[in-house]
């Protein structure tokens, strides 16, 4: 039993409540920086974004500007994007390829390996000044799982594999789409803000309870396109197919659904057009040959929305999206989303994947704008947190065995971990 200012978790009494202050109070965000983000592995980028020596991408990870890059040996590196002289960012381009990171402020320059190689007027430094002591700094931990690179600012953190716990199985199901096990982040980044607390997007990214009402127009679109969207009778389901929601350890969680909405890999629906049938069948055949019938079906016939604690979402649904988000205020987050495809897919398959992505996801999709609207409506309502203090989060709590994707066990799994970390030193 946990009784804290943040959640009331008493499953034996069928009670799980979330204090709304956790989503609205700026003091919570200040604490999250040190208790959550500085104590977790944070997603930094994908290996395919820096495929050649000298390639780099700059981004904000865990509140720090970093450079994700390939060094001169072809290894993936992450540097803190701050000159060792006065901390100015040494790279201000979003991405590219370079031999040098040059700080324009006083002219210090670094090579691809982060070594300080140029200091104008070096002779004016006193004896003992050694450039070797001023390489670009790196996060305490940098590691990857199957192409997904993470960093951690906690020197004591568990190994990435241990941290990811059972989430690795769900990352595997994404990467196993590719015959060579190589996925590729596709050009074109969706970067948009939501005026809502970041944890609302964690919930929203795998909360299937909201699908029927928030995304009615998307379901209508699917129906108009010939997709069966009526729930089966007598099974207690809100949605057209069964899905389960569960925690994966360490705050990671997933919904794992039997697919009804089509999958470019590899379940045809009418939206893809008759002429796509043959190629999707070929993709499926390759999956079966490589993975066996059972696992191929797992890859092709389920869609899964995965939350890797705290702020990475990988949704393998109408397409694969990597989505991460960062709070700039308690009521404001910046979202970055990419599309992920297999390295080998044909031009037609790639185009189909991208088209399928846009039916649902993204700021111009048929669903995401309504999610943004929902989250902003929640945030506005949360201004009442002092008067109406608690959110009910008990769906499915009384069930034995599997809980549905429209229940809330996976949400509770996230919140339990969040609460444990926020109260660790209390």
């Amino acid at each position, binding site marked *: 039993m946990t009784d804290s200012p943040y959640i009331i978790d008493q499953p034996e009494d069928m009670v799980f409540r979330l204090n709304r202050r956790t989503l609205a109070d700026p003091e919570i965000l200040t604490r999250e920086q040190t208790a959550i983000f500085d104590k977790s592995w944070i997603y930094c980028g994908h290996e395919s974004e820096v495929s050649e020596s000298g390639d780099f991408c700059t981004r904000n990870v865990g509140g720090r500007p970093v450079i994700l890059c390939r060094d001169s040996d072809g290894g993936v590196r992450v540097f803190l994007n701050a000159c060792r002289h006065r901390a100015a960012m040494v790279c201000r381009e979003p991405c590219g390829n370079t031999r040098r990171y040059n700080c324009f402020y006083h002219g210090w320059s670094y090579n691809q390996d982060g070594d300080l190689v140029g200091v104008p007027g070096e002779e004016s430094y006193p004896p003992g000044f050694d450039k070797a002591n001023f390489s670009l700094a790196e996060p305490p931990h940098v590691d990857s799982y199957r192409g997904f690179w993470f960093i951690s600012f906690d020197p004591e953190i568990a190994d990435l594999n241990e941290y990811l716990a059972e989430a690795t199985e769900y990352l595997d199901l994404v990467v196993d789409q590719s015959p060579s096990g190589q996925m590729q982040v596709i*050009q074109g980044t969706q970067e948009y803000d939501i005026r809502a607390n970041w944890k609302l997007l964690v919930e929203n990214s795998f909360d299937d309870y909201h699908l029927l009402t928030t995304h009615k127009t998307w379901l209508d679109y699917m129906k108009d396109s010939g997709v069966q969207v009526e729930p089966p009778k007598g099974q207690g389901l809100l949605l057209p197919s069964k899905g389960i929601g569960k925690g994966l350890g360490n705050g990671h969680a997933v919904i794992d659904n039997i697919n009804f909405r089509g999958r470019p890999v590899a379940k045809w629906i009418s939206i893809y057009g008759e002429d796509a049938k043959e190629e999707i069948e070929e993709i499926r055949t390759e999956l079966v040959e490589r993975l066996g019938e059972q696992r191929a079906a797992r890859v092709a016939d389920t869609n899964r929305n995965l939350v890797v604690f705290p702020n990475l979402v990988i949704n393998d649904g109408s397409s694969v999206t990597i989505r991460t988000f960062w709070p700039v205020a308690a009521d404001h987050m910046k979202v970055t989303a990419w599309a992920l495809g297999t390295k080998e897919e044909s031009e037609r398959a*790639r185009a189909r994947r991208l088209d399928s992505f846009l039916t649902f996801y993204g700021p111009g999709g048929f669903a995401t704008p309504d999610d943004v609207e929902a989250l902003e409506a929640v945030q506005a309502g949360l201004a009442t947190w002092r008067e109406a203090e608690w959110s009910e989060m008990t769906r499915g709590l009384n069930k034995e065995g599997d809980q549905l994707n429209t229940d809330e066990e996976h949400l509770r799994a996230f919140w339990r971990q969040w609460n444990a970390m926020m109260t660790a030193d209390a």
Partner: protein
Amino acid sequence: MNANSISRSDVEEFLFEEAALLDEWRLDEWLELLTDDAIYQIPSTDAPDSDARHALFLIADDATRIKARVKRLNDTEAHAESPRSRTRRMIANVRITGYEGDSLTVSANFSVFRYRRNSPLRQYVGRYEYLLRTTDDGLRIAERRVILDPTELGTLGAVSFIL
């Protein structure tokens, strides 16, 4: 019909009429300005010159998807636009950039102001790239590409209306 006889003022008049239909949410009438094979695209802000077959866009609609988009926007359960945004489009620097047979390419700058209750003003700035076709019924839109100037969508949030 040969497009060479179309002047810039003809194009301007057409674009201003289109802007009025969109600002007034007369979306079914707007659909009538499109050819049967029309496309409507907004590239991602970091890949403004890319191809929707190779790059992730914000919007890459074919004619069927455009109609579905309008159907969605006409539904009061398209929550992001219910209640609807108030928009006002300023279209300027209209240029005919090429003629080919019955078609012409057009570039125009835009500034679209979007207002919603409880939301800050959102100002979308960029340029339109059109492929217009001359028909017996007048000019029609075959391609409508919206290139946004902001480096990220950021506080503009979603593109939930027809930009």
